[in-house]
């Protein structure tokens, strides 16, 4: 188990190195002149030269890459051109807000989807299964910007049940802040529901075909015990893997939803920086998101191993 974890961490470090190189190349090298990109077509040659010097863009490529990477690792992420703030603090603040939104979506939808999926799988082809399967697929294929707009116009603009914006007025209590997050969280939850419920359902159906399920019945165990200890316990690991995989999606979904609801998370920051040519922020934010996706996958691997004794305790004999 320890070796497995170490090798996974090693893999992650290597992947992040590749990602950072990609980010660097895409942001700094391919657009050509960095300062020109940032300042726009109307900047004078002097301005460009001064900024290039200030950014260190007049130095050789590898030197720039490694000094940027070193800065990233040590927490010196540079200064935002657009907002005139240190990038590190900026991203951490926005990341916190995004995580809150993601957490609201996750916490509400994960238990619901898992339970719905298992219940559907236990009665395959039953009415609940039809509902979950068809509903799940339908919700998954609706893009967030469509469901977001529809929800916004019905519940916020039409019925006035929920606020139009996602940000609570300053000084609001945690409860009020959560209330503001309900509407933006729903489009994210919709898509998650489809993936997670279908996986839990498939995992359950898989377990029901296993001889040990039959063993549990023929041992004369009560139904509840069979469902909890024998079915759910073994249907969960693949579901957990899928849930963690959805973090990748969530990051993409966040950018859309945050833009739609004007929510100041990291997605919105990334979008604004990209449109505002704030290269320093774009680089740091992209790499941060990459790091988060990697960590989520690592967490999934650990959870999977904890849930599956065969992996936790080393291979079969």
């Amino acid at each position, binding site marked *: 188990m320890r070796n497995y974890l170490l090798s996974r961490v090693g893999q992650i470090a290597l992947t992040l190195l590749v990602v950072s190189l990609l980010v660097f190349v895409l942001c700094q090298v391919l657009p050509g002149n960095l300062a020109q990109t940032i300042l726009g077509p109307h900047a004078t040659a002097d301005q460009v030269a001064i900024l290039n010097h200030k950014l260190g863009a007049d130095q050789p490529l590898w030197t720039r890459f490694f000094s940027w990477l070193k800065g990233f690792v040590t927490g010196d992420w540079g200064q935002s051109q657009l907002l005139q703030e240190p990038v590190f603090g900026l991203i951490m603040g926005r990341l916190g807000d995004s995580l809150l939104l993601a957490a609201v979506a996750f916490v509400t939808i994960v238990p619901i989807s898992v339970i719905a999926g298992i219940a559907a799988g236990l009665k395959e082809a039953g009415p609940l299964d039809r509902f979950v399967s068809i509903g799940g697929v339908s919700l998954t294929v609706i893009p967030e910007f469509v469901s977001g707009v529809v929800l916004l116009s019905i519940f916020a603009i039409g019925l006035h049940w929920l606020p139009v914006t996602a940000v609570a007025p300053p000084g609001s209590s945690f409860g009020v802040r959560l209330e503001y997050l309900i509407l933006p969280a729903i489009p994210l939850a919709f898509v998650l529901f489809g993936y997670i419920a279908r996986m839990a359902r498939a995992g359950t159906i898989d377990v029901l075909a296993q*001889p040990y399920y039959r*063993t549990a019945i*023929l041992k004369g*165990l*009560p139904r509840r015990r069979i469902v909890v*200890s024998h079915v759910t*316990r*073994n249907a969960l690991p693949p579901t957990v893997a899928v849930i963690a995989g959805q973090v990748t999606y969530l990051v993409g979904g966040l950018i859309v939803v945050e833009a739609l609801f004007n929510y100041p998370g990291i997605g919105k920051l990334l979008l604004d920086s990209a449109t505002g040519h704030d290269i320093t922020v774009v680089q740091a934010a992209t790499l941060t998101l990459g790091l988060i996706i990697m960590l989520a996958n690592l967490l999934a691997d650990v959870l999977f191993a904890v849930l599956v004794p*065969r992996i936790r305790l080393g291979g*079969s004999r």
Partner: protein
Amino acid sequence: MTTATQEPPLLSVMDLNVAYMVRGESCPVLRDVSLDVRPGEALGIVGESGSGKSTLAFSLLRYLPDNGRITSGTIRIGDVEMTQLSHAALTHERGNNVAIVYQEAGSALNPSMRVGDQIAEVFRFHTSAAGDEARSQAVEMLRSVLLPEPEHLARRYPHELSGGQQQRVVIAMALAANPKLLILDEPTTALDATVEAEIVDLIGTIRSQSNTAILLISHNLGLVARICDRVTILYSGRVVEQGTATEVLHAPKHPYTRALVASIPRFGDAKGTRYLRPIPGAPPSLDTVTQGCRFAERCPLAQSDCLAEEPPFIALGEGRTVRCYHADDASPLPLTEPGDEFPVTERRPEVLQLRNVTKTYKKTTVVHDLSLEIREREIFGLVGESGSGKTTLARIVAGLVEPTAGQILLRGRDVPRRLSRRPRDVKRAIQMVFQSPDSTLNPRHSVRFILQRAIKKLGSATTVLELARRVRLDQAQVESKTTRLSGGQKQRVAIGRAFAGSPDVVLLDEPVSALDVSVQASILSLLVESRRTSDASYVFISHDLAVVRFLADRIGVMYLGWLVEVGDAADVFAAPHHPYTEALVSAIPRLRSSSEQVSRIRLTGPMPPPSADQPGCRFASRCPRKIGSICDTEAPPWRQTGNGHKIRCHISPTALTEVQSGLKS
């Protein structure tokens, strides 16, 4: 068991009919099945796949698929009528009064629960025991099935146990609530010969210590003979013969039973002394409606009355019945195979040589410094239990696994280790047939396509139809997709594919172990026969010694990566032989009643981890004939006994002969 006959039966099945709904039609699976098992008695249910024997087992527990239904009849266990029970009462009955053990012990256990907890569950829900008490009772159950260090073992997960240990855990779980009836559904099919022998011993112990009635479902007649007092033969959902095990298996009356007994290689049958007689045709499918006897279509003794009306049970004596009009017709069953003599191979030149082949994975040595010759046109049997390295060795020869060291020579020419480096004529010359044809034939292709491609790839002159004829597939089967074929037919396709380019060596890795006995017989006959028409040598890998004895000219025995004995089949099976071979031979279930059994050697002691690079003999830790510390410290030498027979042991052949023949007297 004469005293037992006075007691009322514990299990009483009367006129049981079970049907499956298939495409809106009700297809009977079991018809008018009646049987009794008394307390302490063991009844064997014998039949091929499709005979309904597993359906019978699950019907007794009222566990049928959604489309299955008990249409009429009664099942009484003790004083409980199973067919009338409510769901709650059924849950109480299961595990408590009736328990079942079935084939795949590995998958019958929940992979994410400790085995002790899985047994404790039974106590928790069927007795008043809870928590620690249930747990300590579970440990006691593990102790009672003779598992070592039960306290420690209870905390393990299923994947940490060997196949034999897993099956013991399942048996312990079944016995936990002290059931009145124990159903064993092919309990040893997936296990090695010596492990099977251990489980059989365990069942014997259970019988002697409790009054549990046992219902053993198996296609293995040797196993049934060893365990059971009485036997019921099931064919196409009907009981066709019933009686004591000795009578039914030694003096079978129903033509089907006679055919079944004739289709298995019996231990002691050397090649050339007896034919295996496959039963021609296949059992009627479930939805076939027949007026007469279900077996008539395949029966060599059938007459017009057999087709007109189904024969009733005819009593032949106390508890012995047979469902046949012509049970007194003792005329021999006609041979269904052409020809009546086996080619006897004289010593021919070597076609394949292995020199010092070794395969190690990290620290594990799977094949250790192994040298071997295969002669032209010979059948070489490679025997050993799981983990012996026999499959790895075959895969090395086939080029699917690269050896760590050593050399392979084909007719004196060096064969490249990797398949991709082998020239086409070497690929053609070495072919392999795998255990499970299901996973080696592409389900989307027709038989014709598969054979055609093999012919083209191997650059052969033969035609698809010629090849199909050789493996006895008819025109319709050639045109069909492989998914529509039965297991035996698929294996014929796989064999046909191997023969597409007239190979020099065909490696057969357990080619019949997934098949029914009567189908197995037809494949074995096919192999024997195709040798008459081809010059190929076979390397036949099997854990079934009776099959190897029947088929092989020479035999090699492997244990944990070592070749421990090699020689002519007759020499290997007789003393002197390696102590491991001796244990294997004594573990073969024979078609004799339990009183006639030869004393069996039980292997105790731990298997060394394959990684331990200890200097001594690999078998030393379990060897019943170990002579002292020399076995642990020095690698045993090869000892020649003449006629090319050699044994790798510290004990001299003369001394081995003495102790081994002494045992038998």
